């Protein structure tokens, strides 16, 4: 990512701004903020005579981060491409149901269940991508429309939890190595894969290019439609993984597991908190994971402090806007005119 960002800075500026630029890299800020938050949280929780980062606390933070992390990884790719996906929340619920119902308590059906859920997710992503690229609908409306369609399907067919996940598959949700859940490691592995894809492969570069300026990308020979569709398919598959993980944790599929947690807007918040530009073209997976961890740490700290749950929303909103305001300030230092929507 850093190479790409340096390339976008004009040569003359680079000589004068290089030091500033490196110091202000958003990903670094995110992790510094995370460390600061952990320290402050530990002190506050410590004042109550408890420990924030004991085995339970770490477990708590990582468990919270896993599902949101998976969704946010996908959302990062879509946002980098200059799009966004509002359908992920319902998709998480749908895939959890598909996985749990296909498995129906039988060990032999675990693999088919997972594959079917991922295939449906990929199909939804394909629809999202095609509606945006072929029908030329704005991503906001296209994915909102798909979200409404999924919601209609869920409301029409399900009233509550359905399906049954075999005990063997529940190990995915509950096994851990020391304080670290296996699923969190898998989420980090997916993040690493996505990072590699975005920064080390040609299709990944194309996502940055399309998000940076779709017209320039197209004129440079990038197949912009294919790139956007790919991003949406990958995003939906990531949401599907989150659904499968939640099914394994809950023991069954739940239609509103994604919307209750607000994964659509929450994942966008995590991505933007991680320093990715909402308009696309800048940012990356590392920042997103930092953003997810910040949100998870905030939640865990507030729970430990027994803060009113509604206060969490207030703080979350303030943190989100403050963080993006900071990034925007730093970007204007790099550009003569920072023009954001």
């Amino acid at each position, binding site marked *: 990512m850093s190479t790409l960002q340096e390339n976008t800075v004009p040569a003359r500026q680079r000589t004068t701004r290089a030091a500033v630029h490196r110091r202000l890299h958003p990903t670094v800020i995110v992790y510094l903020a995370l460390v600061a938050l952990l320290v402050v949280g530990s002190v506050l929780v410590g004042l109550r005579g408890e420990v924030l980062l004991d085995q339970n606390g770490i477990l708590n933070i990582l468990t919270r981060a896993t599902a949101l992390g998976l969704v946010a990884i996908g959302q990062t790719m879509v946002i980098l491409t200059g799009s966004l996906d509002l359908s992920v929340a319902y998709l998480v619920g749908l895939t959890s149901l598909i996985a749990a119902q296909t498995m129906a308590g039988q060990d032999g059906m675990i693999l088919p269940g997972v594959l079917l859920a991922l295939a449906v997710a990929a199909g939804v992503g394909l629809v999202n991508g095609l509606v945006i690229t072929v029908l030329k609908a704005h991503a906001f409306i296209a994915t909102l429309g798909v979200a409404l369609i999924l919601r209609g399907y869920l409301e029409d067919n399900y009233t509550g939890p359905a399906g049954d996940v075999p005990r063997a598959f529940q190990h995915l949700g509950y096994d851990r190595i020391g304080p670290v859940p296996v699923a969190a490691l898998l989420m980090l592995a997916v993040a690493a894969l996505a990072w590699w894809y975005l920064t080390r492969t040609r299709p990944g570069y194309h996502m940055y290019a399309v998000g940076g300026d779709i017209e320039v990308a197209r004129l440079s020979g990038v197949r912009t439609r294919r790139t956007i569709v790919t991003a949406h398919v990958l995003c939906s598959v990531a949401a599907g993984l989150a659904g499968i993980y939640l099914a394994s944790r809950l023991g069954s599929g739940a239609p509103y597991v994604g919307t209750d947690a607000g994964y659509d807007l929450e994942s966008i918040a995590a991505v933007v908190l991680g320093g990715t530009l909402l308009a696309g073209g800048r940012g990356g997976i590392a920042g997103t994971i930092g953003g997810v961890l910040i949100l998870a740490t905030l939640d865990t700290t507030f729970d430990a402090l027994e803060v009113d749950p509604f206060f969490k929303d207030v703080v979350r909103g303030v943190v989100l806007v403050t963080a993006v305001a900071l990034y*925007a300030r730093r970007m204007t230092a790099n550009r003569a005119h920072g023009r954001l929507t």
Partner: protein
Amino acid sequence: MTWRPRLAEGTAPALVFLLLLLIGLAIVGPAYSEPAGYLALLKRAAPLMILAIGQYLVIVSGGFDLSVGALVTAGVVIAARLIDGDESAAAWVIPLVLGFGLLVGLVNGLITTKLLVPSFIVTLGMLLVLDGATFLWTGGAPRGALSEGFRMFGRGAAEVPLLGAVPWSVLILLAILVAAVLFMRGGTGRALVAVGDNEATVRLSGGQVDRLRLLAFALSGLLAAVAAILLGGFAGVSAQVGNGLEFRAITAVVLGGVLLGGGRGSVVAAAAGALSLESLFTLLNLLGVSGALKSAVQGVIIIVAVAYASLGGGVRQRLRLWPKQRNHVRPAQPASSS
């Protein structure tokens, strides 16, 4: 001088769509064979139409306002808590709620323009803050009750000469709509559309870009407060009153042929989009479509409507996936707005 209706691009299909829905209503529903049925529809649709007008102002200038749903909930909950059944309180609570909406809009606008945070994020943050703060203040469940005087605007009717009893909400809606049309035809309104079309050009030609966008957000907040007063009167106190209204208002605006990202579309079409959406719900109800499938139908229709608008719009808009305010070279378009 002969007067000809000046319809902005995308307005005509929106009006045709609305007409089709209204004809469909007339065929399906016996209540819609006389004006009273349509008046009731208009009364039901008034809050959403007012929200759509506010949302239009923000969208046409190139932003989003996701905070209006939470603002409506906050407005209703605050009013209920402050009035608490006290008839005399409505007189000062109504201005207070309107002022609150204006304040929230101003904060949205100031953060967007001064701190350069994308409006999507600002208003998303405002949504979280408002939702959290409202329930923090009320302790989880809305308390208090609205007075008759407050609820009058949402469900009462006024005697109008020649027309008979017309609901207050319809009168308020008409007043706002007329004001919005006049505003959009004036210099400030046109400059607002220009900001959405090409911010850099407006800035270079001496337009007050920040002030215009601030105005759009402030008006959106104010109109959301008006919608809160109407909805509170119409539907009563509930913590869910504003749920999902932000997406519904954006859908309505887009259904009216207004381009997300700004610069194109008319305020009348946006209001027509909101009326279309409400008519669509009514029609689906009358046709006996189950509540669950309603959202699916809504999803299909907004995708089709937007696809139609942008495919019909030609190549010009094809590359606008996300508003980027780059200096696209585009043929000059007379930005007529009505």
